């Protein structure tokens, strides 16, 4: 299916966090794969499940604590209201770039043919049922099931949370 002869066929992208920076990174990667003619599948685990939880996906925020790239110290990031303020600012910037909000982005992904899966262990832990999740989530599956879906040659797996934080990511992506 791929247009380029790089040998890459499918990107398997794992999201384990619900902070907007991680969520957008994962969504852009998955969408970008489809736009380039690769297959793409996403696995939502741990807090990443909140990005596909019907009642939570609208209220995701940027992390102001524990995020070394934020332009102020972590202690200030921990003050009440900082997260909401930073989120508001960042969302404004993203609107300028024509980036959709999370629910619309999910619609774009599923319309583009990205296959979406939720992690069984995490769903059990948070007591989420399939009906709590975005309707295009195909099923709640184990990590083994997900790996099996990406086990053919040319299928690459990446943890989206590594973007911008871990140099090894680039190696994985290549």
């Amino acid at each position: 299916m791929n247009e380029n002869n790089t040998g890459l066929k499918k990107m398997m992208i794992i999201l384990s966090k619900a902070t907007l920076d991680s969520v957008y990174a994962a969504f852009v990667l998955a969408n970008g794969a489809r736009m380039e003619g690769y297959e793409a599948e996403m696995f939502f685990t741990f807090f990443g499940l909140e990005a596909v939880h019907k009642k939570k996906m609208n209220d995701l925020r940027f992390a102001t604590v524990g995020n070394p790239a934020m332009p102020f110290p972590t202690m200030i990031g921990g003050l009440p209201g900082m997260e909401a303020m930073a989120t508001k600012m960042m969302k404004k910037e993203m609107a300028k770039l024509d980036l959709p909000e999370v629910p619309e982005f999910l619609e774009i992904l599923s319309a583009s043919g990205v296959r979406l899966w939720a992690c069984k262990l995490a769903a059990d832990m948070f007591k989420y049922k399939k009906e709590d999740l975005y309707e295009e989530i195909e099923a709640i599956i184990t990590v083994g099931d997900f790996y099996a879906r990406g086990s053919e040659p040319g299928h690459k797996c990446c943890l989206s949370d590594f973007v911008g934080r871990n140099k090894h990511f680039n190696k994985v992506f290549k």
Partner: protein
Amino acid sequence: MEKTIAGKTINVNEEGFMTDFGQWTKEVGEELGKENEIDLTPRHWEVLTYIQDQVKKEVGLTIRGIGKSGIVDIKEFYALFPKAPLKTATKIAGVPKPASCI
């Protein structure tokens, strides 16, 4: 570099995108479609014409924008141009490759 297609000489870049839209004709488009393994139907042409119009208006092309065009939704866009739809469609339409990540 130059290439001959549908009896015409056209200039393309290393990725195969035409560099001079003035050289594009419907026949060139048909041939570029075949090169990309797509038999162009009237539905394809509606999308290609829309893309050319947007480029003429200097509107940036994105998957999201195409989905909101009222011409085609994202699912059908991928069905019409299954391999890298935005890249393939712009290539056939004779316009530059969009520099878009979404």
